[in-house]
């Protein structure tokens, strides 16, 4: 298990990560979600040992990674801008990766090269952006590290390739003892592939957990009432979002579905419909809630100061 405690990292005097705690269980696909500049790439680089943390500790199976540098051999980072040697082919890069990760699976490599129809003898600089991405995803998967870190993994891939890769990642995880941490902006994809997730905002992990559990605790309801309603009627619910248009109410609330349904039934709606919620919506609601909390805090501070 990969554990991060109290991580802090400054880049060019700017605090990029702070008070960050994170747990990545073995064998999971962890989706790292966050807006631009939240610190996702920095976090992956710290985990890979490229950046040294300013504060905090990283553990693999309770071994402090800073004290046991051999731990880093369990980690492979495929960055958003992968580097390859001058004139190197995919095959050359495979040899290079094999030095760092001697367990690189040659057979699986050839299988993936064939599957994605790449010429591994062609210099990488002649590949398109998407092909380069495929090439490095292949290298990452066949290197079989214990923790594979994919930064903006599916950028530049066409939908078919994305689907193939997602399938391969899942298959590989079933076969090998591997965990994958993926950072991406594409929440829909993350929802499809990840079993755990963490939302990073301003360098801090604001929420994390099991994807399906979390999604099963967030529900959207569409309600119609006989008379006009006001927001106060729904105060008892843990609301993430609410919009009232005369007698029609759209809301997203956190909690067990049955409890929420019972609570809403007590308001005697004419009609109530339960709709599925996507990860993207959860992300947007969480971000919105955080924004409101921040504004609330700011207003409170301003009030206290003015008083």
């Amino acid at each position, binding site marked *: 298990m990969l554990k991060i405690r109290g991580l802090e990292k400054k880049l060019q005097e700017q605090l990029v990560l702070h008070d960050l705690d994170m747990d990545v269980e073995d064998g999971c696909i962890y989706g790292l979600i966050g807006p631009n500049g939240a610190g996702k790439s920095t976090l992956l*680089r710290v985990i890979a*040992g490229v*950046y040294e943390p300013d504060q905090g500790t990283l553990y693999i199976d309770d071994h402090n990674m800073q004290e046991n540098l051999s731990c880093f051999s369990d980690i492979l980072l495929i960055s958003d*801008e992968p580097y390859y040697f001058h004139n190197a082919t995919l095959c050359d890069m495979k040899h290079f990766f094999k030095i*760092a990760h001697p367990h690189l699976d040659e057979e699986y490599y050839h299988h993936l090269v064939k599957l994605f129809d790449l010429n591994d003898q062609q210099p990488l600089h002649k590949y398109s952006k998407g092909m380069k991405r495929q090439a490095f995803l292949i290298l990452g998967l066949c290197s079989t590290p214990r923790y594979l870190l994919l930064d903006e993994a599916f950028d530049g891939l066409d939908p078919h390739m994305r689907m193939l890769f997602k399938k391969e990642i899942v298959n590989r995880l079933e076969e090998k003892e591997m965990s994958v941490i993926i950072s991406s902006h594409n929440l829909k994809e993350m929802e499809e592939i990840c079993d755990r997730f963490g939302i990073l905002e301003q360098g801090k992990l604001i929420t994390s957990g099991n994807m399906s559990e979390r999604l099963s605790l967030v529900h959207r309801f569409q309600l119609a009432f006989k008379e006009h309603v006001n927001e106060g009627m729904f105060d008892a619910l843990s609301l993430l979002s609410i919009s009232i248009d005369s007698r029609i109410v759209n809301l997203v609330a956190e909690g067990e579905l049955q409890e929420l349904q019972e609570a809403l039934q007590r308001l005697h709606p004419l009609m109530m419909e339960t709709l599925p919620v996507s990860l993207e919506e959860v992300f947007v609601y969480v971000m919105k809630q955080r924004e409101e909390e921040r504004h609330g805090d700011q207003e409170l501070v301003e009030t206290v100061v003015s008083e």
Partner: protein
Amino acid sequence: MEIKNWLKPLFLSDQEKAYAKHYMRTNNRLAIVAALILVLFVMGYIMPSILIHAALSLFGGAPGTTNGEKVASLFISICILAYVLPMYQFRFLMKRSSSDLYLSLPIERKRLFYVHYLIGLLYMASVAVLEYIPVAFYYYGNRIGITIDSTWHAPLYGTSETLITTLLLLVIFLVLGICLYTFFTCFIVRCHTMLDGILICAIYTLLPLIIFYSMGFFLSNISNELLYSVESYHFSYMSPLANILVALTSLPWQMNAWVRLFFEPTITTDYTCMLLGMELLVWLILGVICYRNASNYFVHLKSEDSEQPTKSPLTYPILIPLVTFQLLLIIGKGKLISFMICILFVCYLIAHFFAQRKITIHVRMIAIYGALVLTSSALHHWLVRTNLFAMIYEIPQGDEVELIRLEIIDQNLNYYVSADITNQTVKEDILQAHAQWLPYTTKEQSWNYIQGHITICYLLTNGEYVNRYYLFDEAGITHLQTLVEQWEKEDVIEYLDDGAYHPTQDGDTADPADTAG
């Protein structure tokens, strides 16, 4: 067993070996550059020498005496490689994507540094050895020009083979080359862009030269201020300490000195051997310090700094003030001092803007410049007050003087006197007269009226020269004429207009070419 453990870090593990092999295989550009240097070296230097020698032999001419400087070209290519290879070997630090890849490798950073350092070093050694082969064949095949038996080092190996001489030189050059390579590596790992790397290494290469010349100009300015004599560029005031410092820090000087030591039987060996031994030691110590420093810096390197402005204290933060200070010393105390200080300030700011890649002026920058101006000015005043620690004198002591060369020109009367004086009585007369004419001299070079001037050169018993050049204005010319007339009357020197032979009081004649030393 203990030695074995001590040596262990020098050898590569299987993983490191595999990495090094792969690196060398995929970095064939390095081999191409090395081959190119080799070809240029052979084509441009060795081949013409061989052809000339062959032609001379063919047409019955005596084979030209080879000089050891042919071997010195070896060192030039070693120097080029020592400069280029660190940049190539550690270029991955200057790009974010590549530093991400390399620094995330599961190889201990200290070892990663060592592997890259070692590969560069092996390339340098290979090229040097390959270049040595034609040189060795050239010398061995011809066995010309050098009487090895008469050199100081011949008894060391009891043979007269030039091959051994060149081999020994190769080893010394390689050691110095490795030190230089390590020296540059120390700065390259601190640079975050390639441009910074090239610049910083170039500045460090030129730094001893910059310091030497700026100090020379600075001391010349002071001596000009203190002496009646004009145009007193007394670089000799810096010796012997400054010369030793330059010798210790300047590899081209060393290269030349080593070659001379090995190939010139007449060279004074004691002083040279001691100095060369010292500088080899200095460079070895410097090499060890630089390696440890570079390795430690690499271990704690922040990958996030790549492609960012270079901020390491050993780079721009120290070099900009240092070079500025040297330039402040050069501009001295001339009439345009304020203007020059302003111009230099602009240059100083531009250098800072370049270093930080943004146009921002900090108070600290201005304060440092102010401090540099004040320090250079204070240093100037201090040295003037102390007469450059009493090292500056207008006229040497009589017993120190071996020969006086005197040249008097009075353009007004179209009068010319030139003499080399060795006679003790005459020398004393001249020394006395020298003190008397000082009040009549001027430092103003005038183009409106014809001036007279005296050039006097003292050759001291320690082999050094003291040159003085005096200008006389219209009032001074009268004194000059009186002086010459008096000397003529006393038969000190004779009026001559051909300048070929110059009789002294004794009536001896001396050819200036013989007495020039």
